[in-house]
């Protein structure tokens, strides 16, 4: 029997606000242990949380980025569980009235992965286990998170990977998080079950906790899918449980222990008041939102006839697409701009991080100027390419490298003059051409190229010469 994979994700994303969610300590990653702490975030008795306004704004932006509904009234709840990394023995989170309801992420195959909700909460500190001793660092404690809870709509590992990539892309795009999985600013809990293909009922699911790379998500899901299928095939039953993934062995194992009985006893946090979100504020944030990558992608493909693959590259990071948008202003072919970016500029940006920052020496206006020279026929493609390299090396504009005479060489009138001279000065070749020796025209073109010192467009010259001869 063939089995279908069914998966839903709970994705935690650290928001890049300046300060923690309930106190003024910095959210900077790293730092010496316990140096980004105060009485509030280490949960000293008597301290009280005060909600960071920016966290709410960032969460609303996240909601708008995934087409979610922004709640009019939201509340904070306490999720009670006792663990050394949780200073208060409860995490302030949202259960009964989250900030964002619904929404979706659309995949390239056209499927929409629906979101159940997005809520805000605080991160826990960090534990280091050494020789059985436990070291606790609360720097990360109280860093704001959003948790994006999807419906179980994912049907393959490829969809899962794309879902994570899309989330990462759009959350970075709207500027609420760097979504660095390796630094833990984006982490996924993966719910997974299997069912015989063609059936509707969900199988029993397991949850793989705290996945911190897309590669590992794929490995863990693959392993877990196989494990569940094997179990069912051999007459066993999947047990609903929480699993951890061992990236050395590539296997999952149960996290359950007698010590953690899980009943979070959620209740409204009496230390925090209700959050009302006026519609005007939502509208204002909406107005401030950048055009989303999916919309840009569509526009590039439909309006500019850019191939999908290239459009995907241009919209992977917001800065690239913004650069592109500026550089295409008034040009004949946006595709030419795209080619320069994806061809020559990307070659200089080796890592994904470099591409994301997109720190190139040439400004969009400078690229725009170069492409317009090309558009007007003043320079040829080869010259444009080599000029761009020089511009990228130096940060100087195109005109620093292209002389008047360089551009003169390919001026329409100049070309015509050169062609006329070639035809007039080489009657033999003209005769040969006329008598059917098509190749004879190459000599005439060669003459034009020589006299233009290589600046003329050979194809344009050939066409012009043919025209002159035919009109003789």
């Amino acid at each position, binding site marked *: 029997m063939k089995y279908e994979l069914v998966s839903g994700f709970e994705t935690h994303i650290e928001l890049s606000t300046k300060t923690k969610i309930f106190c003024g300590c910095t959210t900077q990653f790293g730092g010496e242990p316990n140096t980004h702490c105060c009485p509030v975030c280490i949960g000293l*008795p*008597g*301290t*009280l949380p005060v909600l960071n306004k920016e966290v709410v704004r960032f969460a609303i932006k996240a909601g708008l980025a995934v087409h979610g509904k922004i709640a009019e009234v939201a509340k904070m709840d306490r999720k*009670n569980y006792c663990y050394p990394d949780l200073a208060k023995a409860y995490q302030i989170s949202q259960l009964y009235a989250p900030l964002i309801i619904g929404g979706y992420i659309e995949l390239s195959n056209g499927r929409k992965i629906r979101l159940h909700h997005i809520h805000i909460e605080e991160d826990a500190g960090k534990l280091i286990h050494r020789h059985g001793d436990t070291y606790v660092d609360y720097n990360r404690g109280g860093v704001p998170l959003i948790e994006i809870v999807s419906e179980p709509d994912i049907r393959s590992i490829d969809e899962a990977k794309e879902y994570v990539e899309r989330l990462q892309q759009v959350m970075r795009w709207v500027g609420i998080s760097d979504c660095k999985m390796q630094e833990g600013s984006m982490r996924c809990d993966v719910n997974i079950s299997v069912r015989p293909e063609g059936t509707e009922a969900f199988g029993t699911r397991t949850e793989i906790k705290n996945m911190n790379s897309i590669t590992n998500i794929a490995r863990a899901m693959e392993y877990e899918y196989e494990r569940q299928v094997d179990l069912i095939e051999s007459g066993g039953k999947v047990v609903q449980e929480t699993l951890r993934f061992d990236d050395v062995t590539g296997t999952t194992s149960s996290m359950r222990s007698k010590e953690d009985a899980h009943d979070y006893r959620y*209740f409204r946090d*009496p230390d925090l008041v209700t959050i009302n979100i006026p519609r005007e504020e939502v509208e204002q944030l909406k107005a401030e939102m950048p055009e989303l990558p999916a919309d840009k992608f569509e526009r590039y493909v439909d309006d500019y006839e850019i191939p999908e693959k290239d459009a995907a590259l241009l919209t992977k990071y917001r800065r690239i697409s913004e650069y592109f948008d500026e550089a295409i202003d008034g040009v004949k072919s946006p595709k030419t701009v795209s080619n320069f970016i994806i061809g020559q500029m990307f070659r200089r940006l080796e890592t994904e991080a470099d591409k994301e920052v997109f720190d190139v020496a040439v400004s969009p206006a400078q690229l725009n100027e170069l492409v317009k020279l090309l558009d007007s026929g003043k320079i040829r493609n080869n010259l444009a390419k080599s000029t761009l390299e020089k511009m990228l090396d130096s940060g100087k504009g195109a005109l620093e490298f292209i002389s008047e005479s360089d551009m003169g060489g390919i001026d329409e009138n100049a070309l015509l003059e050169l062609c006329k001279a070639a035809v007039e000065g080489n009657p033999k070749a003209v005769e040969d051409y006329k008598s059917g020796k098509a190749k004879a025209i190459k000599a005439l073109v060669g003459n034009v190229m020589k006299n233009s010192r290589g600046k003329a467009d050979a194809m344009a010259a050939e066409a012009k010469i043919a025209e002159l001869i035919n009109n003789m």
Partner: protein
Amino acid sequence: MGLINDIHQKLINKEISCTELTKSYLEEIEKSNDALNAYVCVTGDEALKTAEAVDKKLASGEELGLLEGVPMALKDNMSTNGISTTCCSKILTGYKPIFDATVWEILKSQNAVMLGKTNMDEFAMGSSCETSYFGGAMNPFDINHVAGGSSGGAASAVGGNIAAYGLGSDTGGSIRQPASFCGVVGLKPTYGAVSRYGLIAYASSLDQIGPITKSVEDASIVFDAIAKPDKRDSTCLGAKGGETYPKLNNDIKGMKIGIAREYLDGVRDDVKEAVLDAAKVYESMGAQIVYFDLPILKFALPVYYIIACAEASSNLGRYDGIRYGFKAERYTGTHDMICRTRSEGFGEEVKRRILLGTYVLSAGYYDAYYKKATDLRGTIIKAFNDAFERCDVILAPTVPMTAFEKGHATSDPIETYLTDICTVPVNIAGLPGVSIPCGFNAKGMPIGMQLIGKSFDEATILNAAYKYQQAAPEKFTDTKWGVKL
């Protein structure tokens, strides 16, 4: 009629220096604290340092604020930077906060002379002060009787004249009940009038800090000083009703004083009689007494215990032996360490309430208990709002009885909980309530009555209380203990 003003006058008239005054309080603490057990920590050096600063100010002719140089005490659940703060629990032994509670920050900035931290029921859970890890505080009227709880130490210290005033906290009556037992004044402000920042939480939606004083005037002075908005407490608005002091002596002619019959149910006769006598005093001053029913009150006690214990079970989860306080000596692994620390560090009543709170929040019980109790909270608030359509203040007994004898507090938790029956409704509804003395029982133990007001209307209840004190000063008697000015 107020002690704070007396002291202030003596200081500015140079009848006594602040250092002399502070020393006399410290000496009296030395003499009487073995018997009263009001203080669990005495901060003599700090007190004398502040006194010295006040004397310097006096010497240089600078003006003195009303609370400046006045010796006072803080309940041991208010955080004091560098000074032991234990909630009278073994689990917080050795804990010295690294910040000040907002109330202490305010008073410290006004050169209040803190003599020490006062005794209380462990984590403010109790009605006799006897759940304190340090043993109970005793009643200055008779040290064979308890001071009440949970702010028993503060009431005992003020009643025993070893503090001019104290700050207590009131979750279900913990200011008013011991004030009533010890024959002093205790004001539980409107929820949100005084900052809770730095107050070690018992039940966050019910806890409120307020003064315990010798007189209504003093309660008004201290309340006006500490009721300020606080950016660190999202629920704190400060004194929205404005200052109470200027309105203390307003005429109460025509004031409507309500009596809800349910408040008198099950109240001992001597107490009931004293409260009804007080009503007559009010009538003689031209106030109008209005009787009505508040049947919803009979659910107040279970509602209170469900909400308080639920919040407590969450608030007290953090005592795990990792960041502060007591940590078990022997254990195997982190989970075992946490369980042992908590099992050894908390007393029986605290554990009982944590378990109860965990139960009412746990899966399958949340709706039937916690959710239902919070819904009823809304109903109770509405009932009070309706009642205040008919009257300006509500008069009620503070406690259905007088102070019990030492060790007499029953081992039956429910019987103990019943002593809170008159005090908890105010906390559930977030209203202000002040307890003032209104008589004595046959054995000479004080009886207290409370005046309950509308939200943020401390001014009216203090006005009514002040008028009563003027009309019946004999109810406000002193004890043999402590500093005699």
